[in-house]
C-alpha cells in the first residue's frame, strides 16, 4: 500500500530542523523503542525561572513521518513554556504538517508524548512534582490514559476513543487488558496487540501485561 505524504511532511523529512543532541541539556527523554522501529530522543534546555524551552534538539530512529513529526514538534515547542507544551495535543503536529496518513498518526502521538516525558522528568528533577511512588495503587484511569497513546493503524484514532477496551484487570504487578477487534482488521492484530502490551508494560510497577483480542463485528463497536 503506497503511503502518500504531504509536501510539508516531505520538507520536514528531507530538511528537518533542530537535529542533534544538546550537551548541556537539563531535560531529556527517549520515547518509543527500537523493536517497534519508532523512537525519538529529545534534549532540552528549560529556563528554571521562566519555564521557557530555550533550546531543543531531537534524534530519531524511525520512518520519514517519525522524523517529520519530531522536527515539527521541536519547532512548536521552542520558545514556549513547559505549561503550554504540556497542554499540546498531537493534532497540532498533524495539522502543521497538512495531515498524516492514518497509519502514521501514531508518529505524532510519539512526538508529543516524548516532549511531555522530558518535561515531566525536568519537573521531577526540580521538585515541582512528586516522583510517583511505587506503592500508589494503579487505577483504571491510569491504564486508560496510557492506552490513549495507542493508535489504531486503520483509523488513526486511539483505541480508547474507538471503544475497543472491554476489560481491565490489575493484579499487583500484572495487568490484563481485553480489546474488542473487528474481523476485518485481522491484518492489524499483531501491531495493536504489541503496541498495547508495550504501553501497559511501561506503567509504573507493572512487570507483565497480557493483552487479549476478542473478535467482534466492527459495526457493533463503532456505532
Amino acid at each position, binding site marked *: 500500500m503506497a503511503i502518500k505524504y504531504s509536501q510539508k511532511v516531505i520538507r520536514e523529512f528531507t530538511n528537518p530542523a533542530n537535529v542533534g543532541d544538546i550537551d548541556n541539556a537539563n531535560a531529556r527523554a527517549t520515547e518509543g523503542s*527500537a523493536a517497534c522501529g519508532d523512537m525519538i530522543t529529545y534534549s532540552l534546555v528549560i529556563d528554571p525561572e521562566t519555564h521557557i524551552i530555550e533550546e531543543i534538539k531531537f534524534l*530519531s530512529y*524511525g520512518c520519514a513521518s517519525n522524523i517529520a513529526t519530531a522536527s515539527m514538534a521541536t519547532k512548536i515547542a521552542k520558545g514556549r513554556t513547559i505549561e503550554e507544551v504540556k497542554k499540546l495535543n498531537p493534532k497540532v503536529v498533524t495539522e502543521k504538517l497538512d495531515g498524516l496518513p492514518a497509519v502514521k498518526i501514531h508518529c505524532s502521538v510519539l512526538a508529543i508524548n516524548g516532549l511531555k516525558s522530558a518535561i515531566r522528568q525536568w519537573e521531577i528533577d526540580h521538585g515541582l512534582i512528586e516522583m510517583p511512588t511505587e506503592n500508589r495503587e494503579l487505577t483504571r484511569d491510569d491504564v486508560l490514559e496510557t492506552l490513549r497513546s495507542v493508535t489504531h*493503524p486503520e483509523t488513526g484514532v486511539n483505541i480508547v476513543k474507538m471503544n475497543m477496551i472491554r476489560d481491565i484487570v490489575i493484579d499487583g504487578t500484572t495487568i490484563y487488558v481485553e480489546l474488542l477487534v473487528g474481523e476485518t482488521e485481522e491484518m492489524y492484530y499483531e501491531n495493536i496487540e*504489541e503496541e498495547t502490551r508495550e504501553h501497559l508494560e511501561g506503567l509504573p510497577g507493572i512487570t507483565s501485561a497480557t493483552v487479549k483480542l476478542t473478535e467482534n463485528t466492527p459495526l457493533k463497536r463503532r456505532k
Partner: protein
Amino acid sequence: MASAAESTPAPVYFDNGDSTPVLPEVVEAMLPWFTSSWGNPASLHKLGLDAEEALDTARESLANSIGCTAKEIIFTSGATEANNLALSGLRAQFPDKRHVVVSAIEHASVRNLVKRWAKIGDVELTELQVDGEGRVDPDSLRNAIRDDTLFVSIIHGNNEIGTIQDLNTLGGICRERGVLLHSDMAQSLGKIPLDLAKLPVDLASFNGHKSHGPKGVGALYVRNRTKLRRIMEGGPQEFSLRPGTENVPAIVGFVKAAEIAVRDLNEVMPRVGTLTKRLADGVLAIEHVRLNGPQIGSPDRLPGNLNVTFRYIEGEAILMSLNYAGVYVSSGSACSSRSLVPSHVLTAIGLLHEEAHGSIRYTLARQNTEEEVDRAIEQTKSAVDRLRAMTAFVPEEHSERESDHAKTFYKKHDDT
C-alpha cells in the same frame, strides 16, 4: 560538479520484484485483441473463433515455456488467484484431509489462506521453518508429512530474499509420501530455467507482471490427473476450473512476455546477475550492513535480488530518502507495511525486529544499467549517512539483543 542546467536523470527503478515495465513487443502483441479482434472466445462467430484461437496458441506457447502440456494450464487473474485456486481447490476436492504444510516464508496469498483455515479449525497447519538463508530443510518436511496431509506448498523463488528452494529434493519427498506439492513460481518464471515435466511439482502458480508482462493475469499449472475443484461458479471456461470470460489481451501479453523471458534467459540473467553483484559490492561496503538471504551470485538466489539490513536506521526512512532522490526500492520494515508489522520472511530467517526494520530490497531486471547501479550506490550511501547522523538508536544498548546469526555476521564485517 553538477550544473543547474543539467536535467534530472530518469529515476532508477530497482523494484522489479514488485512489478516490471511491460516490453514494447508485449504491448504490441496485445493491442489487436483490444481494438480489432475483441471477441469473446465463447462466441460462435468469427471474432469468437479468432479469440479462441489466440487463447489456444497462448496456452500452447506458455506450455512450451514452462515444460508442460497446454491442457495443464489454467489462466487466472494472477498468482494470488492461482494460489487460492490451487489450495482451496484441493481443499474442496479432498475435504477429509485435515492437515496442510507450508513454508514459513510464503507469499500472503498462501500464508493468509492457510492461517485462516487453521484459525477457524478447518485444518491443522504445519509451518516449515527455514534456515538463516531461507532454505527449507528436507528433514523437517519429511517429519511434517502425515497420513492426512492434503498438500505441501513451498514458494520457489522467494520474493523478498531471493532464496530458491531445491524443489527436486523437496518434491521427491512429497512423491515418496504420496502428497501433492504446490509451488508459487511467480518470481522464478523467466529468471531461472523451469521444466515442469522434470520437476516433482503437481501445481504451480505464475503471473505476468513480474516478468515484463501485464498486471492482472497469471496461470495455474495443474499436473495431468491432479484432481481439483473450482472455487467460483460460472461458465465452463478454463476446463471448468476457472469460470469467467478469459482476458484475451492480457493472456496474449503475459504469454508473449514469458516467451521472451525464457528465450532471452541465458543472455539476460547473467547480465542482471553481474549488475546485482556490482550493486551488492557497493552497498555491502557501507559500514554495519548485513546481507539477507543466500550469497549474491549463488545458484540458490534469484539473479536480480539484493536484500540488506542497514543497522541503526529504519527502512521506510531509507526508502523515502531514496524515493526523493529518484531511486525506487522496497523495504521489509514494519513502517513501510500497511499492517505495521515487520516482514515475516526476515523474522523467519532469524532477524530481530530492529534488524528487519532496517531492511531494503533492490530487485533488478533486464532494462537496468551499470550507470543506474552506480547512482543507486551513491544515493544509498548518502541516505544512510544522513539518517545515521541523526539516529536515536544507541548501539551499545542493543548489542546484547542481536540475534546470534547476525552477531557472527557483523563480527566478520565490523572487523574488516
